[in-house]
C-alpha cells in the first residue's frame, strides 16, 4: 500500500541508482555516495556525532559526522534522525566518516507533529533493531522512505506503522500467517470461529485453528475484522483499507498482536513505544486547566 501511494518519491533521479558512486578507484581512500535515511544519532566527544544510516546501496551503517554538533556545520541538519539525503561516506579505521551530504527531504512536516514523529520513530527503531549491518536491501529502503512520506500526511499514522511492521516482517521473512492455520496449514474457511474471533499465536506465527489452539502457549484474541484489516494492509491496495471500518478495538488488537509477534519472533522490545503510549495517554487525560 505504502509503496504504491508514493511512486514519485521512489522513482526520483536520486533514488534510481542502485549502486553508490565511487569517488576514487583507490581502495585505501575510497568514498561512496549513497542515498540514505538517518535512523539515529548519538554524540561523540565534544563536537562530533555517530550517525546510523540506512542506505539503499549498503544497508545499515554507522559513520562519524565530524563537527556535526557545531551550529555552522554543513552536516548538522544532515545528521538529524528522519532525514533523507545523499551521503558521502569515506572508509575509516573502524567507522566510516561522513564527509558530505545533500539534503533530499528533511521531513519537516513530520518533525512538527509530535504524534506523527513518535510513530515514525517506532518504525525507525524497529528497522534499526531488526536489520543487520551492511546488508543492502533496496526494498527495505523503499519501504522506509515511502513510510516516512506517509507518516507526514496519512490521517491515521498508526495504520502506517502497522502497515510498515507487516511489510518489514514480510521482507525479513517473518510475515505472520493470516489466511491459514499457522500450525497445521488448514485454510481460513476451516478455521474455528468463536464469536467472530481468532487466536493469533506468535509462537506458531499467525492464526491457529481450533484443533491447534491447545498447543499454543501464548496467544492474542483478535476479531475476524482485525485479521481482515491486516490482510488488507498487506494487499498493497490503499482503497482496500479505506473501504473497511476500523474501530479503536481493531487498532488495539493489531497493536498487541504485532507487538507480541515481533517480541516473540525477533526478540525485539521497542523503547519508543513507551513514549507513544505515554503520548496517547496524555491526549486522553489532559491536564486540568488552572483557574
Amino acid at each position, binding site marked *: 500500500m505504502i509503496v504504491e501511494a508514493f511512486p514519485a518519491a521512489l522513482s526520483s533521479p536520486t533514488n534510481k541508482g542502485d549502486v553508490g558512486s565511487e569517488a576514487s578507484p583507490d581502495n585505501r581512500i575510497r568514498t561512496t555516495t549513497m542515498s540514505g535515511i538517518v535512523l*539515529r544519532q*548519538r554524540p561523540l*566527544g*565534544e563536537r562530533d556525532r555517530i550517525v546510523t544510516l540506512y542506505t539503499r546501496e549498503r544497508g545499515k551503517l554507522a559513520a562519524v559526522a565530524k563537527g556535526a554538533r557545531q*551550529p*555552522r556545520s*554543513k552536516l*548538522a*541538519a*544532515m545528521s*538529524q*534522525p*528522519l532525514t533523507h539525503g545523499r551521503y558521502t561516506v569515506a572508509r575509516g579505521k573502524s567507522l566510516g566518516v561522513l564527509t558530505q551530504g545533500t*539534503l533530499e527531504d*528533511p521531513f*519537516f512536516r513530520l*518533525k*512538527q*507533529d*509530535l504524534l506523527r*514523529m*513518535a510513530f515514525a*520513530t*517506532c518504525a*525507525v*527503531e524497529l528497522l*534499526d533493531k531488526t536489520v543487520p549491518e551492511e546488508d543492502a536491501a533496496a526494498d527495505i529502503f523503499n519501504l522506509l522512505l515511502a513510510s516516512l512520506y506517509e507518516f507526514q500526511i496519512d490521517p491515521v499514522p498508526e495504520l502506517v506503522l502497522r502497515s510498515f511492521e507487516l511489510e518489514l516482517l514480510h521482507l525479513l521473512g517473518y510475515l505472520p500467517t493470516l489466511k491459514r492455520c499457522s500450525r497445521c496449514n488448514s485454510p481460513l474457511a476451516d478455521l474455528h470461529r468463536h464469536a467472530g474471533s481468532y487466536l493469533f499465536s506468535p509462537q506458531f506465527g499467525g492464526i491457529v485453528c481450533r484443533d491447534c489452539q491447545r498447543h499454543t502457549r501464548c496467544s492474542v484474541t483478535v476479531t475476524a475484522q482485525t485479521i481482515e484489516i491486516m490482510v488488507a494492509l498487506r494487499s498493497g491496495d490503499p482503497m482496500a483499507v479505506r473501504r473497511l471500518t476500523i474501530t479503536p478495538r481493531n487498532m488495539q488488537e493489531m497493536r498487541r498482536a504485532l507487538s507480541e509477534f515481533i517480541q516473540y519472533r525477533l526478540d525485539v522490545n521497542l*523503547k*519508543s513505544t*513507551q*513514549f*507513544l503510549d*505515554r*503520548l496517547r495517554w*496524555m491526549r486522553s487525560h*489532559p*491536564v*486540568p*486547566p*488552572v483557574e
Partner: protein
Amino acid sequence: MLYPRPIARLLEELEKLPGIGPKSAQRIAYHILREPPNFAEKLSQAVVDTRAKIRDCSRCFSLSEGELCPICQDDRRDRASLCVVAEPRDLMAVENTGTYRGCYHVLQGHLSPIDGIGPDDLRIDPLIQRVREGAISEVILATNPTVEGDATALYIAELLRPFPVRVTQLAMGLPVGGDLDYADQVTIARAFEGRRLM
C-alpha cells in the same frame, strides 16, 4: 613504558574523562608533575569540593552550592519569565549573552524515545508544577534545534496548553556571520518561518 604506579593510576583516571585519550592524559600528568606540589593539592581539593558541594537547585535544577542557585535567589530577576533549557551549560550560554533577565528551568536532558529517555527521566513535572503555581506569564523553550530538542519542546508546549501562559520557542535560522548560500535548506526554511517585520 612502564610508569611508576601513582602515575599509571593518574593516567588511568584521566583517560576516563570525556575527550581525554592516552596522549592527552600523559600531557596533563606531566604538567601536574612539573608544577609546584600545592598545584596538585589545589586541583584535587577543587575536584573533591565540586563533587561534594554541588547539587541540583531545588527550584530550577541547575547546578547549585546551596538549596537555591544564585539566579533563583536573585530578587532582581523577572520571575514571570521562565527559560527552559536542557542542560546547565545551555543556561550558561543564554546567561552569557546578558540579554535575558528572567528565571530558568533545567530539564537535565532531551526526550529521546528511541533511547528510552521519556518524560519521567526529565524534570518536566516540576516545570508544570512551577507553571501551575501561577506566577509565570511566559515560558521560553530553548531546547536544542535537533529532532530530540524539537520533540521535547513540542511535548512541553502540549502539556502547557491548558495553562494561561505564553509559550514561545527560540528563533532558529541563519548563524550570524554566515553566508546564505552555504546554509542548508532546513536552516533557510526555519529562518523564513522566523522572519520578522522591519
